[in-house]
């Protein structure tokens, strides 16, 4: 884990600059309509983190992450990506460091083959052709895309399409992968593959930020959660800490995964209320019965 302070919910803690990927300082974002989408946001994303950003639609979470690669510019405050101010750096340049996978792969895919889709971003980065082919090859292997290479992306299943969308961003070699609602429209099998891919990307040293509603998926994969509600960050800390904070859950209208709810109901019998998945619950029950 990184040196980030998880005990401090307000996240005023400023981590070691060298290990910080994205640093957000006093960010305010006001939409042209006058809606104040973000208020006084201070947060940082370190290297090699698995961070979930949760909250209802309209709470500001997508608006926040769109500042990480300059898709949106702050009304007030600054965002530094590896020390570079996003106001002064174009999204095309930031894309080398921050990869952003949109919720709906159909918004992203347009090429006639999966291989072309992987090349698109690399070409935009003006890499030499042999380097492009090398990276495409690596990505294909890591994402196990061999069977789909010459297939039209639109003829793939929703799950495979998502995978291609993630791979096409991953190929560009960013250090931070932002996944917006990765589980939407994905069935169980696709979710399992998605889990493996997230694991693989984390193992390869990436930081992963996912914006998600899927609490059991978040509980399974994130080490740190940021909860947003009405343009503010209302919580920044570990997931077990979040799930016992009834005030935060009420404010953001969230419910812990069923397995966590179950563990909480049984806390009178010595079961830890900090269970995040079925495997943990099994060992908790074992421990209590021993």
């Amino acid at each position, binding site marked *: 884990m990184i040196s980030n302070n998880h005990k401090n919910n307000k996240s005023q803690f400023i981590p070691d600059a060298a290990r910080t990927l994205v640093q957000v300082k006093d960010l305010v974002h006001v939409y042209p309509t006058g809606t104040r989408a973000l208020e006084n946001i201070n947060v940082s994303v370190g290297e090699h983190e698995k961070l979930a950003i949760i909250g209802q*639609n*309209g709470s500001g979470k997508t608006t926040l992450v769109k500042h990480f690669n300059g898709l949106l510019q702050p009304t007030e405050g600054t965002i530094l990506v590896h020390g570079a101010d996003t106001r002064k750096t174009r999204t095309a340049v930031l894309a080398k460091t921050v990869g952003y996978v949109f919720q709906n792969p159909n918004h992203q895919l347009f090429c006639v083959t999966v291989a072309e889709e992987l090349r698109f971003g690399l070409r935009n980065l003006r890499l030499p052709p042999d380097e492009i082919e090398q990276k495409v090859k690596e990505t294909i292997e890591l994402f196990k895309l061999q069977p789909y290479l010459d297939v039209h992306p639109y003829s793939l299943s929703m799950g495979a399409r998502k995978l291609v969308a993630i791979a096409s961003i991953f190929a560009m070699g960013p250090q931070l992968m932002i996944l917006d609602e990765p589980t*939407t429209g994905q*069935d169980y099998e696709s979710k399992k593959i998605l889990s493996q891919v997230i694991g693989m990307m984390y193992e390869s040293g990436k930081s992963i930020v996912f914006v998600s*509603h899927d609490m059991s998926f978040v509980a399974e994969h994130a080490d740190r959660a940021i909860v947003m509600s009405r343009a503010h960050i209302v919580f920044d800390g570990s997931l077990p800490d979040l799930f016992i904070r009834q005030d935060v859950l009420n404010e953001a209208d969230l419910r812990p*995964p069923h397995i966590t709810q*179950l563990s909480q109901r049984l806390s009178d019998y010595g079961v830890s209320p900090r269970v995040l998945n079925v495997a943990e619950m*099994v060992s908790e029950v074992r421990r209590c019965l021993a």
Partner: protein
Amino acid sequence: MDSQALKLKDVTYWYPGTEKCALEKINLEIKTGEFVGIVGANGAGRSTLCYCMNGLVPHSLGGKMEGEIIVHGIDTAKSTTAEIAQWVGLVFSDPEAQLTQLLVADEVAFGPANLGLPREKIAQLVQENLKLVQLDGLEERNTHSLSGGQQQRLAIASVLAMNPDILILDEPTSNLDPRGTYEVFSIVTKLNRENHTTVVMVEYQVDLLAEFADRILVLDHGNIILDGPPGEVFSQVDKLSAVGVQVPQVTKLFRQLDHEAVVHVDQATTPVTVEKGSTELAKVLKKTVDARLS
């Protein structure tokens, strides 16, 4: 009317231009007032089954159908989608694609107006159904300005305004946030419990389905492979995993505990909800605590 809401007899269906059938010899009876959950992997035929129930198959989607679908005592092949719409309401997953009108009240009025109901009756239906989905007061709002959850409730009100006995929802929450999801589930549950509307719902979120549905159908490659009460169906963990269906966390826990011989649970009575699960586990844990005390 008898207590049978819907019946499919040996239904096989091929989409136009395909050789492999999307549904294969489906036999299914749904009783009035039931809450049926449909689960299955992508491409298992869940949406197609929904389209069969409201006449889109075969009337609008074309293709080839064998077998018989009886809704409201009438063979759908001999009826029209417009007629069936009065007995079966279908809600889709994309809230925005279901908006046909600019104003909320007009959206609800659209179906009844198409049926040629008198204007006063329509006004009354609009009032009633918006109230039912708790959107009353928003009549003059632009349909776009609503949140996803509100749009989905509007879609429900719009089909309910045609007075169907059966409400079918095809992944109604897949584009919604948790708040929107709870809004939809609470409205649907209320309709089912208080108005005895028959509900058929395709849904990924098995944890929620397990809590609210009376009966679960598992589809795999166009076949119904499991059919029964949630506890009975979801407890078959291996079979479900094999066909790519998620199992509620609580059920998974109990099957695991049983498998590891920590707690014995009968297959058929495996808890599927937090409520039931905590009661069961509390019993076991209490025994240990009591034993330790004495």
